[in-house]
């Protein structure tokens, strides 16, 4: 038996003449946290919805938990948990009533239901508020309740579409602890996000841009993949002036302010390391430090993903 929880081959999804997903192929292993990173409108949500059998693919093959999503959509839905982008539990039901509803919809064995609801309430830190209407709960609680509803039936695969958008940093951190806890128990987790720090929490990342999969790998692999040059860190006086000088210097492809230093992309590191301090000095700017550095995920993202129109 294959270890792949999800297999996607040549997936295409068109809405009219618009191609939302363009020949995407990848697979995900059991217990892996796979992140979808990409600008808004890149097609992240569309891919997740197809994997959850909510949208039909135009062409290509998608197997989730060993099942074809177009042939056995209901069987796929029984084996996955899904949290949609917008919070979509019932505001006029209490937390417990929502959990009970989804327990029923996923046909959680009646004998286990109470214990699992208790577990979900504790996991979400909802103890004491479980009988309040969901509409009155704050974002972080809602998010964890939605996760509880999505995993009540212990699905082997979990899809989370921008689960932490609009949630405070502390709640985000708690949420990610829960995700890793689940992955550790063998659950395959798909997460879409546009937070760079969250991307670092993923085992592997899929970079999506304009419907295409532009890169796939661990955060480390993505950072060390050739960007067509070397990234230099330059620390010097008067960053603004220095940026203007370097942008004019031959052999510099890109330069940008990054915190209290400059990130400079050059095709030839050796020459640049030798010549750039001199170029700055010619304008009366003393270079305090210059060295080649590993790019951050954000550097990779900006380089690989064209800004969406």
């Amino acid at each position, binding site marked *: 038996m294959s270890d792949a929880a999800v297999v996607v081959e040549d997936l295409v999804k068109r809405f009219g003449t618009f191609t939302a997903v363009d020949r995407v192929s990848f697979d995900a292993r059991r217990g892996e946290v796979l992140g979808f990173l990409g600008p808004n409108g890149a097609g992240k949500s569309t891919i997740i919805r197809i994997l959850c059998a909510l949208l*039909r693919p135009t062409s290509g093959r998608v197997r989730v938990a060993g099942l074809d999503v177009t042939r056995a959509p209901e069987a796929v839905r029984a084996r996955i948990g899904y949290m949609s982008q917008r919070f979509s539990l019932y505001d006029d039901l209490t937390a417990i009533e929502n959990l009970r509803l989804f327990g029923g*919809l996923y046909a959680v064995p009646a004998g286990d239901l109470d214990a699992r609801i208790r577990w979900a309430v504790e996991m979400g830190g909802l103890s004491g508020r479980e009988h309040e209407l969901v509409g009155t709960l704050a974002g972080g609680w809602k998010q964890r309740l939605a996760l509880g509803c999505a995993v009540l039936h212990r699905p082997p695969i979990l899809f989370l579409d921008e689960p932490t958008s609009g949630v405070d940093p502390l709640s985000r951190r708690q949420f990610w602890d829960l995700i890793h806890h689940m992955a550790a128990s063998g659950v395959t987790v798909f997460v879409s996000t546009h937070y760079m720090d969250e991307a670092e929490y993923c085992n592997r990342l899929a970079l999506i841009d304009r419907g295409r999969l532009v890169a796939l790998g661990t955060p480390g692999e993505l950072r060390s993949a050739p960007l067509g040059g070397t990234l230099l860190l330059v620390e010097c006086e008067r960053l603004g002036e220095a940026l203007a000088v370097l942008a004019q210097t031959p052999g510099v492809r890109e330069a940008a302010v990054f915190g209290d230093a400059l990130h400079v992309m050059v095709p030839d590191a050796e020459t640049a390391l030798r010549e750039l301090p001199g170029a700055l000095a010619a304008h009366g700017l003393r270079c305090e430090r210059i060295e080649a550095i590993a790019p951050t995920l954000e550097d990779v993202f900006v380089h690989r993903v064209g800004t969406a129109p």
Partner: protein
Amino acid sequence: MSWRRTVAIARKELIHVRRDPRSLLIALLLPIMQMILLGYGATLDAKHLAVYAFDRDGSQTSQALLKRFQASPYFDLVRTVEGYADLTAAVDAGRAKLGLVVSPDFSRRLAEGGTVTVQAIVDATDDNTANLAMGYAEAVIGGFSQDVQLAWLRRQGLPDRAAAPPISVETRTWYNEDLESRNFIVPGVVALVMALVGALLSSLTIAREWERGTMEQLVSTPVTAREIMIGKLVPYFVIGLVDAALCVGFGIGWFGVPFRGTVGTLLVATALYLVVVLGIGFVISVAIPNQLGASSIAILVTLLPTNMLSGFAFPIDQMPAPIRAVSYVVWARYYLTILKAVFLKGSGLAALGGPLLAMVAYAAVVGTVATRAFRKTLD
């Protein structure tokens, strides 16, 4: 079909109704309101019609005639006026539905054994009331006329028989013995309320999920389209039955409408009718994904034909042939036929085979369409 999932949906739907004041109002208050409004307001009977009289004779005989009008339950002699202009002014202003003019030679000519005419002016803006008023007025005057003739014959020493017409009619009004239009309207109100409540509430079910953004999460679960439909409609089916019981109970207990059939017959017909109206509301809800639009269409589609073409307001036999043909499509027509028969005739299931069969067919068609209407996809 999974029982667990269907029950889960039904339970959630019931919570929505319980916590939504608007739905509660529609489910509980609307039926009673309709019953009171229509039970009292939509009466077709003409009683206590205002009469103004211009008695130019002023004799004992003419007073006796006017007393007859006063004694009739159909008329109230509001005032005797002293001039023709006052009389027409009263009719113009709508204060009088009927204006009577008694000629100055009224008593003299009757005493001589001659004939005399009484003028009756009827406000015929509402032709139904005018027809009734004319009929009642003729009956009152006819009765008085016969008594005058009888008295005259006796004075002449002739036998009473000479005054009596050779043939008389003995009418028996069946089913609605007292000719109370309320007895005919109340069963209609039941059909109207059920159509309104059933279609209105069910038209919100799917639209609400889209509007609140909960649909995506719902369809991501393994619940099937049919389980969603049945789970969502069962609570409204029960509410519909409760409303029907409320309306029928109110009609019998408050308005004194006779109920001669069996509860079983009523239940079978009502259940079928509910399947039809709930199914129609559900299909509308699938087609129009916002609550306001869906509920407006639901009201339009159910209320209008139920009012106009079911035989509730206008008798179907009196409609022109093309309109009558259209009325066959109106599901409420069959339910109304059954309701009236159950209330007033006491008919059982066997006697109502035709309309019941039509309703079974209707329920089957609507049920099938509703099952196919909703698909679990976001495409």
